[in-house]
């Protein structure tokens, strides 16, 4: 049996996922407002029902999902392999040997930049195989990228 990966992601990742969930809720709210303005019928009860439904579901999502994700998300890199665990309702563990790594990317979305976070993506020759770690502290991410790049350069062959 496989143990869990050693490291958790940054605690601020919870905030990042919460903000991302709130963005989704804001889009829903905008839709609701447009509907309110466009609708001509005098009865507004349907609006309140639909709004209440997504508000409750959305609030639950915005509160539960980030915590859940944070508990699941873990990562570990050794000199031979990178190993991650991610997801919430649907969870997955990925392992890729560093000998098959082709590229290492560091990405920072707008929210991540605000919070000093970054995600690291490791791609292999398989289109199905990219391994991504979201919500790393920026210094940790840089360190990881350096280590992975060094390991990937050390390997030869075309990694297929």
């Amino acid at each position: 049996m496989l143990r869990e990966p050693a490291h958790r992601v940054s605690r601020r990742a919870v905030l990042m996922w919460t903000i991302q969930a709130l963005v989704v809720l804001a889009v829903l709210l905008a839709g609701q407002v447009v509907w309110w303005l466009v609708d001509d019928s005098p009865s507004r009860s349907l609006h309140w029902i639909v709004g209440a439904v997504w508000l409750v579901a959305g609030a639950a999502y915005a509160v539960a999902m980030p915590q859940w994700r944070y508990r699941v998300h873990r990562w570990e890199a050794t000199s031979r392999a990178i190993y991650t665990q991610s997801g919430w309702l649907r969870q997955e563990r990925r392992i890729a040997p560093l000998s098959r790594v082709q590229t290492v990317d560091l990405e920072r979305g707008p929210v991540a930049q605000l919070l000093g976070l970054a995600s690291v993506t490791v791609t292999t020759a398989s289109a199905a195989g990219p391994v991504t770690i979201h919500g790393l502290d920026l210094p940790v991410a840089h360190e990881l990228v350096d280590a992975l790049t060094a390991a990937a350069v050390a390997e030869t062959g075309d990694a297929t």
Partner: protein
Amino acid sequence: MSEDTDGWRRLDARMLLVHPLETLIRFLPALLAVVLFRSGSDANDRWELYAIPLIVAFGVLRWLTTRYRIADGQIELRRGLFTKQTTTARLDKVRTIDLTARVYHRLLGLAKVEVSTAGGHHDRLVLDALGVDAGRRLRAELLHRLDPAVTGLPAPTGAPMAVEDVPREAPPRVDDELLLRLDPTWIRYAPLTVTGLASAAAIVGFATQGFSRFSQERSVFRDGASLVSRLSWWADVLLLLGIVSLLAVGAYVLTFWGFRLTRNRLGTLHTRRGLLTSRETSIDAARVRGIRLDEPLGLRLAGARRLKVVTSGLLREQGGSDWLCPPAPADVVTPLALRIRPDEAAVSGPLTPHGPAAQRRRLTRAVVPATLVAAALVAARLLWDWHGSLLVLVPLILVGAVALGQDRYRALGHTVTPGHLVSRHGSLDRQRIVLDRDGIIGWKVEQSFFQRRVGVATLVATTAAGAQHYDVVDVPLEQAYAVLAHVSPELLADFA
């Protein structure tokens, strides 16, 4: 053949004839529209004729501006007049080479050469077109670059060199091993595959649309249509089945006529097929990562199979490039699979079943949608007074769903042999993947919410070849990790 100092070569000059023809075919609908429009008016001005010199000039320009060369260990293709475009591929990344010749190519002795390389399916070079001989020599040079004995040349990584310098006779065929030749009696399997049926259905659909237009005017069609509508429903079904089968047979013949699979002494697999459009595919043995035995329901019931290759760098948009054997009897396909992957346990051995949780999940997934459909039928009968005979379908649907779920469960299985990871799944489209263990470049263990509750997982082996990932579905979690540990012990050592 001209060649400038840097080794740049042109396409075959005969393509100047092909290009206007191709353009003509591409614009055939537009041309027909013009002709139809013309027939309705009195105008005598044949302005569409002005397009012909333009098309020819465009073809000449394309010929003049397209060049390719093999130099410094790479093949380069340069084209374009205003925007120059250079495509480059390293020779050691070349995976597969396709030679395609449509009817008019064949008349002129031409073939389109497509070179696909590693690193994504969009990475390919198309040379449209070379002479068939030049194309075959280029292929020999690219694929057999590691063995100068085959081409009689040093490896093409050194000085620039012309393809025409390759000896005129094609690479030695004497020691090529003939693995398979199409037996015309296999055509009987054509109507049994889903792809055959789908293509036939598409043709029927188009044809009925076309006919419905004519049927208003032409008495032949009107009489035919009224004849069909007078037949009883089972005769209609039989008629439809007959037409669809005939069309599927036609598609099979067009695609697979003269199918031949050979292997040269370097292991390169080479297929050749096609009645009108002939197609030759060469697959570098070093790129083959396994095989896939397909047993769709129809073929399975008839005791037939088909075989595909799992390889990196195949042209996916060209359906059928990866076929090693068209639908054929199992006692032909299994020995063939064994010759390509000599691992009896992997190709035809028993598989480890996935247990009761997987069985329950198969049944749930089949029965729940079927129950919904059945409930909808009953509701339609009660609420909108649909015809009562529809209720006959309810038990049929439910029984069919249970049978499907059971069959899907029976398909589930996996095993690990010294050389391969084997996984099987599916009922209507059952497939058995035999994946080389050293072709696996990563792992994923996925669990949905429901899979976690019953302790099963989907084990995904990622690879650079074929579908990029191959799944072992609904395997008990501890078995999934056992497979992982068995195949990649060095990976797990760090995390155990």
